[in-house]
């Protein structure tokens, strides 16, 4: 295996923490030009410089020594808004890749099974092909062929697909989580682990759909990386997985009103809008009907705020693996062992108490603290030569 590149690792750390070179330099006392040159391989990193940065940010020094994840970055699949910026996408890459590296270690240590998912190989897929693959996926996940999925997260985790909530350190409260990203996933294929990362939002139905969409990428695009319309295919797969065709055909018709769609939402845990799209994908409603339903959704104010609450699903697998090895307060000891900043662990494996409330908000509070404290240092002690003590807050 190739040795880790400290420059690449330094860049990854900045992406994880959302720090510019200037901010990191001011906080750590290391020159900005040094950081820049190390990142571009124009000069060798020194242990002293890396140690100053590690100490300042509360990152284990070994972070700079470990090899990045084996995930080929161009094979990552995203579900995101078109407005998501390239910088944010790069940061999501970094966060996901580190999460994948940790997940590989945790699953391998436990000898946890790899997912038995089906996979597509054909150049093009029809709607019928996608329906069939969704059916096979239900079989692989040990789900009934025609019933609502009671807890998609747990079903996937049981089958070996790890689920990780992702939190960017400086995600503002009022902006879309993850800078407009919803989910990201990677699976190397048979006998390799799979990880789905998602940015938690306010709607449980959106999270369920994001998970199903990412499963679609795992099944449809692991061996078809150049598919013409991967996002469209993954959306159709998500609908097929969550609401199997046989049930959709009996529930959805031209005559169904929005109130009836709302009742279906309470049964299937799928948004009204996704149910309408599902009906359209199967030809159960035509374009005119679809448009008239969306006009009514807008008129009712349901495009952004649908009725019928869908509860959040909380991941459990990574926390379980982590706490089995490191106890109920695992973040600090695990961060040293796994050579990662503890916030990443807190993000992808939140404690059960955090999960029962809004998991990401608590994690965000801590990382906000880090970045704001570093920002304070930037203004308070510019060019301070000595490294500061770790800024990371006490373990929970």
């Amino acid at each position, binding site marked *: 295996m190739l040795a880790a590149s400290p420059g690449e690792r330094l860049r990854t750390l900045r992406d994880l923490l959302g720090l510019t070179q200037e901010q990191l330099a001011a906080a750590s006392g290391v020159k900005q030009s040094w950081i820049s040159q190390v990142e571009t391989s124009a000069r060798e990193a020194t242990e002293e410089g890396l140690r100053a940065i590690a100490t300042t940010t509360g990152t284990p020094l*070994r972070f700079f020594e*470990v090899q990045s994840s084996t995930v080929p970055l161009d094979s990552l699949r995203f579900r995101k808004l078109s407005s998501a910026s390239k910088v944010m996408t790069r940061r999501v890459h970094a966060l996901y890749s580190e999460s994948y590296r940790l997940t590989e*270690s*945790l699953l391998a*240590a*436990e*000898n946890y*099974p790899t997912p038995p998912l089906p996979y597509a190989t054909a150049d093009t897929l029809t709607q019928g092909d996608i329906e069939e693959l969704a059916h096979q996926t239900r079989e692989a996940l040990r789900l009934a062929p025609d019933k609502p999925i*009671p*807890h998609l*997260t*747990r*079903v996937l*985790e*049981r089958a070996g697909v790890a689920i990780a909530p992702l939190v960017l350190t400086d995600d503002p409260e009022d902006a879309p989580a993850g800078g407009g990203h919803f989910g990201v996933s990677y699976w190397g294929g048979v006998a390799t682990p799979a990880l789905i990362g998602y940015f938690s939002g306010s709607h*449980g*139905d959106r999270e*369920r759909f994001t998970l199903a969409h990412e499963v679609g990428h795992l099944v449809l695009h692991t061996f078809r990386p150049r598919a013409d319309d991967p996002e469209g295919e993954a959306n159709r797969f998500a609908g097929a997985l969550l609401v199997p065709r046989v049930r959709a055909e009996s529930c959805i018709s031209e*005559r169904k*009103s*929005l*109130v009836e769609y*709302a*009742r279906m*939402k*309470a*049964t*299937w*845990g799928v948004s009204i809008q996704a149910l309408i799209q599902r009906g359209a994908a199967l030809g159960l409603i035509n*374009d*005119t*009907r679809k448009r*008239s*339903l969306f*006009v*009514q959704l*807008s*008129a*009712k104010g349901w495009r952004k705020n649908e*009725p*019928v*609450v*869908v*509860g*959040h*699903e909380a991941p*459990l*697998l990574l926390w*379980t*693996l982590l706490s*089995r*090895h*490191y*106890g109920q307060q695992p973040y600090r*000891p*695990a961060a040293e*062992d*796994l*050579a*990662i900043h503890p916030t990443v662990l807190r993000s992808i494996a939140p404690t059960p108490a955090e999960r029962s409330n809004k998991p990401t908000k608590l994690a965000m509070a801590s990382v906000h603290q880090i970045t704001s404290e570093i920002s304070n240092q930037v203004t308070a002690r510019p060019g301070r030569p000595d490294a500061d003590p770790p800024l990371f807050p006490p373990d929970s």
Partner: protein
Amino acid sequence: MGRCCVAPSPTSHLNFRRDNITSMVKGHVERVRSALLGLCEPLHDAFTWAEQLRRERLPELSKGPAYRWHATHTVRALAHYRLCQMSGEIGGWKLSGNHSQNGALWLTDGSYRARILHTLDECDVPPPGTNRARRAFYRNPLLLDEMPLFGEANDKLLILWNINPMSLVVSFRVVRTIGNWTWGTPAKTDLDFPLPQTAEELADLAFEPSDEDLGLELPSEEEEGEGDNDVGGIPG
């Protein structure tokens, strides 16, 4: 009572204060509102669908006010067709009247009668004109502060529809007329309120994920004894 100009919001529900209805007639409003609840969803659904279909099939009619009349007639006809299809599913109401006669779109639940009329301006109430039958329909007795002692309530109502040309959202307003008037003079109505988009209470509906019987199965779990608290490590 004079004309009550209400600008119905598509998402609004009844608001007695805004609708300027005195406490004396609140009981009547509630009575009429309850009778109309079953119409909320079907009417909005049928007219929204009709407008979409009209735009798809006859987009030329959207180009300028000269064809607006034709677009209105087409939407009304398509809505009638849709409501015919929904027969039995319009909240206890059924179509009445002769649609072939100038596109009449009337509804009744056996007691109440309602005529569905188009308005260009959502504040207007079309006057009855000179047609005697229509003038008679407009002539409801004044509301009393007591409910009728004998027999069923049999109000004759107008349901006024209007389509926002930008959002394509259809809105409906219910009025109870109490006489005749001519264009340009205040409409004579004593009830006037927007028809809600949805009558059904959805607040209690929810989907709560459950992982009961979906416990994680850790491969090495059985190998470890109960109470084994060994806290090991994982190489990074």
